[in-house]
């Protein structure tokens, strides 16, 4: 983990999903893994004050370059997303835990919602030549889907849109049951309600008889988001409740085993007040 001034090399709007920035940051690219993130300073002053966490959307070690997809939610995201080639970005990373793909996984299912595509794209590029990979992505409309020409051709791409403008109408949960029967490893990243729904469906799938020739679902991992301060593990702003008690999304996460994270009605569960 280092601090590095990365130089923006490219910028492209991806529909209504966000802006993809290419950033030359060899020190960070050399260490980065899928699921990890960088804490990006949104300016050079203390207004806005906090860095913003963004997952790696692409890791190109040879080129010493990373890509981020940035949705401009507020002032920090807007500043970062509006950087142009040649501009510098103050990056702290790589931070947090990474997805671990089981060696023997044959059928890898990746599920993405919104900018949760970021680590799923890294996994798709990393795993496409090693096993069968299916990426399931859901969005409000076609404008919120990841463009298929930015995926390895061998990756099967299944999409759902809430307005039915592309692919299967509805949410990712429409397409999930069948894919869950096929997969022997699952990785997902997206909004909390989506992750909570996947958790419920996976439990159901586990109870159902396995498809012929399919091993039991080996492993299911999710990457979660939480508001952060330091991202260095010191402030404890970013905790989520897990089966092991409070866990920091910036250290023990953002990648957790699916069953470990406690959800409360589709929201992250919060700890009780003790005084």
């Amino acid at each position, binding site marked *: *983990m*280092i*601090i*590095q001034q990365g*130089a*923006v*090399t*490219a910028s*492209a709007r991806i529909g209504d999903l966000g802006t*993809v920035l*290419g950033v*030359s940051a*060899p*020190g960070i690219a*050399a*260490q980065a893994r899928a699921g990890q993130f960088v804490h990006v*300073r949104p300016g050079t002053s*203390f*207004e*806005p*004050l*906090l*860095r913003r966490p963004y997952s790696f959307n692409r890791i*190109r*070690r*040879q*080129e*010493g*370059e990373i890509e981020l997809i940035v949705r401009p939610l507020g002032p920090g995201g807007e500043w970062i997303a509006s950087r142009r*080639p*040649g501009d510098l970005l*103050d990056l*702290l990373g790589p931070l947090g835990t990474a997805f671990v793909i089981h060696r023997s996984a044959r059928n890898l299912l990746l599920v993405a919602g919104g900018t949760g595509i970021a680590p799923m794209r890294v996994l798709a590029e990393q795993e496409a030549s090693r096993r069968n990979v299916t990426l399931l992505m859901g969005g409000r409309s076609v404008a919120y889907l990841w463009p298929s*020409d930015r995926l390895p051709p061998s990756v099967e791409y299944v999409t759902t849109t809430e307005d039915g403008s592309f692919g299967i109408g509805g949410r990712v949960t429409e397409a999930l049951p069948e894919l869950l029967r096929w997969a022997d490893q699952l990785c997902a990243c997206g909004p909390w309600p989506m992750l909570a729904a996947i958790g419920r469906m996976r439990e159901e799938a586990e109870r159902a008889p396995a498809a012929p020739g399919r091993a039991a679902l080996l492993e299911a991992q999710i990457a979660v988001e*939480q*508001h*952060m*301060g*330091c991202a*260095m*593990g*010191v*402030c*404890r*702003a*970013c*905790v*989520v409740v897990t089966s092991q*008690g*409070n866990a920091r999304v910036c250290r023990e996460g953002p990648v957790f085993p699916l069953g470990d994270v406690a959800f409360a009605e589709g929201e*992250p569960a*919060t*700890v*009780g*007040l*003790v*005084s």
Partner: protein
Amino acid sequence: MPWRRPRKKVERPIEVTRSIEESLEDAAAGEEEEDSVDLAGLDDATVVEAATGEPEPERGASDLALKLRETLAREPAPARARPRATTYPESGVDLAVDAARGLRLRNPVLTASGTFGQGIEYAELIDVARLGAIVNKGTTPNMRPGNPQYRIAETPSGILNSIGLENPGAVEVARRYGVQWAALGVPVIVNVAGYSVEDYVYVVSEMAGTPGVVAYELNVSCPNVKDGMIFGSDPSLAAELTRAVKAETDLPVIVKLTPNAPDVVAVARACEEAGADGVTAINTVLGMRIDTRRRRPILGTGSGGLSGPAIRPIAVHITYQVAQAVGIPIMGAGGVTSAEDALEFLMAGASAVQVGTATFADPLVPLKVIEGLAAYVREHGLRSIREIVGTALPRMVE
């Protein structure tokens, strides 16, 4: 797989002065070396080709960007022997201060409680041994799971936090971190919190003899379970607490003032009379933000503590007032982001400063403040940083 460009060994003179930038380069080079795979087998042409690559047409990288990428990729990090540097920009400058009675530190820059964990986390990123001291996360008698989410919210030039003193409890803190503190090479001040006088005394007794610990700082922003009164808002309660803790330990005891007290100067005075060896000014200022979409406060607990540059003028003002009322040393805290900010506190009467929230934005701030203060002493031909302490205070009439 991480990679490293093949490179010739470069003989370099051992440098005597390292700036922050150089330390960072080292850190980058060091980390790279740790887990990199040597691609020495590849010939240079292949590697350069791979490193520069072809721009993907749809991404439209500009010429400038390509050039940048090319230089960044071509320039291998300098191969550096890594003898631990013995001198820094601040070396040879007298920055030593008494941060409290009986607590001489090599320089006046500390990291504030709750913003630097147990000191070991940021040690991965910066050389913490260059700091004057670190203050650990508020330590309570027993483990506390902390408050419900959200625990943090950004505000203009600041943040609100409501962490809820999440910590593993005094026994665990001493057991887990004592040995690591001794190895950090930086003095540790234990920040003590509790909900009764006995709580504070218990924490101090449990921490006794822990390696690395040089003093205690009492977080008196907590309510006393007896009457719900905040310890730091009532002079007699704060004094009672100070006396009880002083009786338990021989180490310096510092009281961390809360700006939410009706009369913070009276509290400081009472603590001095009760034997406090120093005061820290200030803890966070109460505040709130509302989520207008959900029509309720953003923080899980409703209100929280405001910190960062937003509170600096409040903190400087309290420092200035307290400095005129007490004789014990003061540590200034509240929105320090630069040496210039630190100088404000020192001139207002603080002997040292604590850097908190700014570290989240830029982890190098504490070291930059040290370097900046050293430069100030040099530029102004001072014998020591102590010469500027209190220089902005009204002159005492003889």
